[in-house]
């Protein structure tokens, strides 16, 4: 591309500004978690690790993390099962309404979270289902299915069926073929889908708000409740800092898994 030098420099400057725009808020939170001042004025008056100690012994935080992990695991398990089944159906069979499956699956994530949340909430109240762990898992799984589905479908389309046919021709039954041929081909796609599903569930607040009971607080719910309390600010800062540091994990895992930097398909 024959761009003039000033034009290239200008684009480089926008890139740098853009990256600064992306990272300054995150770094700001990281630094603030060590700020000695309880009012968190800027610039920090000094640095301390006492808030980190406080956060790690905070019972509310610990309970919230446990709830979030349990909900995430439940939702991911359901999403893995349903997403894989739907992907197999769409990839390997021709049937009436095949094009609609993808659309129906993507709907819960395409519509605003508040719509999904209220819809489930009203259905639970009409059906007399008490809100709690189960309803949160149902809510999260509903919008997590599509990420597993997309990952598995892409993989199934790429791998085709010839290896499976070869396995069956050599005398393996359906289950043996699945265990020895199909599943190993799918493993990394399932992992990417599971990772995405867990991350989506772990970060979800809106659907959780409408499907949880007063006793069950996931981490985002805890953060949101304490966001406006000046007394809770030191602990919230640390939780926020940890959540930012955790965001490096999935990208690291994705690059390790497949050399694919996109971290799976959304």
């Amino acid at each position, binding site marked *: 591309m024959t761009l003039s030098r000033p034009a290239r420099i200008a684009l480089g400057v*926008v890139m740098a500004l853009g990256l600064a725009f992306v990272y300054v808020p*995150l770094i700001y939170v990281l630094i603030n978690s060590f700020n000695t001042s309880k009012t968190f004025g*800027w610039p920090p008056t000094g640095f301390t690790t006492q808030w980190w100690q406080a956060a790690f012994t905070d019972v509310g935080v610990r309970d919230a993390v446990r709830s979030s992990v349990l909900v995430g695991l439940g939702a991911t398990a359901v999403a893995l099962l349903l997403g894989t089944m739907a992907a197999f159906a769409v990839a390997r069979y021709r*049937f009436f309404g095949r094009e609609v*499956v993808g659309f129906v699956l993507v709907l819960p994530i395409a519509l605003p979270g508040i719509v999904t949340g209220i819809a489930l909430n009203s259905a639970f109240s009409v059906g007399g289902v008490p809100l709690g762990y189960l309803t949160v898992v149902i809510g999260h799984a*509903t919008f997590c299915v599509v990420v597993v589905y997309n990952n598995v479908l892409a993989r199934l389309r790429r791998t085709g069926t010839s290896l499976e046919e070869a396995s*069956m021709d050599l005398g393996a039954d359906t289950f043996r073929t699945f265990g020895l041929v199909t599943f190993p081909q799918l493993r990394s796609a399932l992992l990417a889908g599971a990772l995405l599903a867990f991350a989506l569930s772990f970060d979800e607040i809106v659907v959780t708000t409408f499907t949880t009971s007063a006793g069950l607080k996931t981490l985002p719910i805890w953060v949101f409740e304490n966001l406006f309390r000046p007394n809770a600010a030191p602990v919230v800062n640390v939780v926020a800092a940890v959540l930012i540091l955790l*965001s490096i994990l999935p990208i690291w895992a994705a690059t390790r898994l497949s050399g694919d930097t*996109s971290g799976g398909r959304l």
Partner: protein
Amino acid sequence: MTSAARPAGGSLPARRSPVVRLSAFLVARPRLRLAGLLSVPMAWLLVAYLGSLAVMFTAAFWSVDSFTGELVKVFTLDNLRTLATEEVYRTIALRTLLIAISVTLLDVLFAVPMAFFMAKIAPRRARVNLVVAVLTPLWASYLVKGYAWRGLLVPQGLVSDVLRPIGLDTPGYGVPAVIITLAYLWLPYMILPIYAGLDRLPDSLLEASSDLGAGAWRTFRSVVLPLIVPAVVAGSIFTFSLSLGDYIMVKIVGGSTQMAANVIYDNIGVAGNLPFAAAAAFFPVIVIMIYLVVVRRTGALDNL
């Protein structure tokens, strides 16, 4: 796939195990396998999800008894009529649309030059790293990002420290803060499709354009822009619809500003008026549906 598991040669045991028999039974019946695969996910989505949506949108035509607070399941258009005619709801709807459009434009403004730099100017080895750099924040918590901006935008905060030398100050909490924060949240969703589109655009096309005498700007307008429009549209699906349905960021950095989803939230939460909340939910859903249909016409969805 169609051939049944058959005894190959004479070395197999005379009696086939139940697993093998079940396998053979399934192999011969593709429709049964299909039904087994589809029934659970579709039952979940159709019954649990579409059923819930149906319950909610039916409730939009009910009302709440103002004395007992109980649902009155009698058809009425009052909720929709109130939403369509009262000034305050029209203002909120308009404000929400303008915020979603501003967020989208701001993201395009940042994303196009950034994606162009990433795909065409940065050294090849740096490209992957830049993609990772842009992508990583997507995994950082949504709430934490709002919280970060709440801290940055306070009076005497970092933003005002940076802006004061050039004669500006923090916008404080309000509509501009909401636009900045939402644009911040969704920026990677705009950069990635544009980057992918530009990455596919061969350099030879740009060279051909300049060989034919076009300047950089002319090349951008006549060659690059038409080719990245679908990517921009694809990115805008995220920036526009995610902004349209948001009520949390408004609470964190919007001061007393209200958006469409706040009307939904406040009616179900504080007022306990499910019918009115459900009626208010029609607005974002219908706007997003119209947007998706329009976008589908442009063919941008094929690029996702």
